[in-house]
């Protein structure tokens, strides 16, 4: 092999190292290796954030102890959107690079994201009842989350309905991409449609007025915990999906051998 040729290959390898992790065997090896650590870290950080938030923060004026629900509400709302975002990225990777692990990871993320959305809606309702005097209001944020929930349901239903796994992965990926455009559009439409009760973002980095530090720090820890929990769930669920594929392949092979 000539020298320039080798150099181009080296350059390509430098760019492409990340795709090696899309190899199912390598993914299984790596995820199996880090999974125990990940579970441990999740239990530690999530537990710390929640215990800190629930038991060691002062009760807020006007809010009483009901304020503590934000340690579940805000992280799940944050993760509900992040999970969709991750699904879209994984779907695009699948559409372009055809890495099966990517498609399976998107599939694995959907139920987790759905549950996060549901938790955000339910805890929001529980909180809204004493604070706003209503379980539900057609407020932009609430409405957007309800719509996001519907998008998750449609996405999962499409996965469940199609038998051929590759076709299902392709179609759901297209749906995820088109759906997110419409989800963002809905967000703006809903904003336009009704000005809400919900407070503005309490955590954005550029905001001048954030929640007081006493509440903010445990909240950030809880959010980190929820994120770790999400990553752990994705790893576990993707591993399960890969094993499921292998079982299918083995069954097929056996049936072929019998015939």
């Amino acid at each position, binding site marked *: 092999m000539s020298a320039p040729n080798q150099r181009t290959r080296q350059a390509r390898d430098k760019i492409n190292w990340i795709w090696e992790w899309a190899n199912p065997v390598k993914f299984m090896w790596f995820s199996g290796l880090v999974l125990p650590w990940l579970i441990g870290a999740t239990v530690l950080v999530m537990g710390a954030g929640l215990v800190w938030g629930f038991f060691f923060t002062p009760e807020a004026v006007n809010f009483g102890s009901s304020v503590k629900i934000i340690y579940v509400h805000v992280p799940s709302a944050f993760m509900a959107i992040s999970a969709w975002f991750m699904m879209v990225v994984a779907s695009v990777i699948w559409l372009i690079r055809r890495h099966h692990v990517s498609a399976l990871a998107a599939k694995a993320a959907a139920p987790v994201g759905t549950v996060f959305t549901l938790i955000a809606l339910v805890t929001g309702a529980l909180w809204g009842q004493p604070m706003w005097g209503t379980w539900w209001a057609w407020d932009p944020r609430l409405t957007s989350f309800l*719509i996001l929930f*519907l*998008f998750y*349901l*449609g996405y999962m*239903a*499409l996965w469940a*309905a*199609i038998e051929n796994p590759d*076709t299902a992965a*392709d*179609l759901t990926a*297209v*749906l995820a*991409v*088109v*759906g997110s455009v*419409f*989800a963002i*559009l*809905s967000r*703006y*439409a*809903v904003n*336009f*449609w009704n000005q809400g009760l919900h407070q503005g973002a309490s955590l954005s980095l550029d905001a001048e007025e954030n929640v007081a530090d006493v509440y903010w720090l445990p909240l950030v820890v809880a959010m980190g915990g929820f994120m770790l929990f999400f990553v752990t769930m994705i790893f576990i669920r993707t591993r399960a999906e890969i094993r499921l594929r292998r079982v299918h392949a083995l069954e097929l092979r056996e049936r072929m051998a019998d015939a």
Partner: protein
Amino acid sequence: MIALALRDLRLAIRAGGGFGLGLAFFLIVVTLVPFGVGPESDILARIAPGILWVGALLACLLSLDRIFQLDFEDGSLDLLATAPLPMEGTVAVKALAHWVTTGLPLVLAAPVLGVLLHLPAPGHLWMFITLLLGTPALSMIGAFGAALTVGLKRGGLLLSLLVLPLYVPTLIFGAEAATRAIDGFDNTGPLMMLAGITLASIALLPFAAAAALRINLR
């Protein structure tokens, strides 16, 4: 392209159900609502634009699975896929045919049915305008949903679940534009957003729908 459009239109008219079914459904929805909320004219007048929009949207939904399903079953969709006309063009023409057979009758019927709901005077014109602007987007988005579910045996219900969330922005801006006009406010904002959604759907969604169809025909 023109031949395909004419063929689809002819099929829809002669096979029956194209024009009639959606319109009849629309009429029934508009008739049922007063039974549900009571006959007081001021309440009906307040919710009339919303009812007409939701009714039109549901009527549009009814006939979506016909866009590709029949052609998929008898194999003509495969022929269309191998025809010189690109798939994107096929999708756009089929969405257009769906709009002419379903959307356009709804647009024409809405001002008339508005009478049943005591729609205030300028509302008739505005229902016509907003629906005229919005229903092409409904057909195009619906064609995308139909392309996703074309290979499925029981795709109808799933199609509704997929398409309805996508209809949210169109519905919001359409109903908002009509309501504002009736209440005497300026409605250029929602009207322009509505037109923008329609144009963007027509420009971009054929590509997504064609991709979905190619995957389904693979």
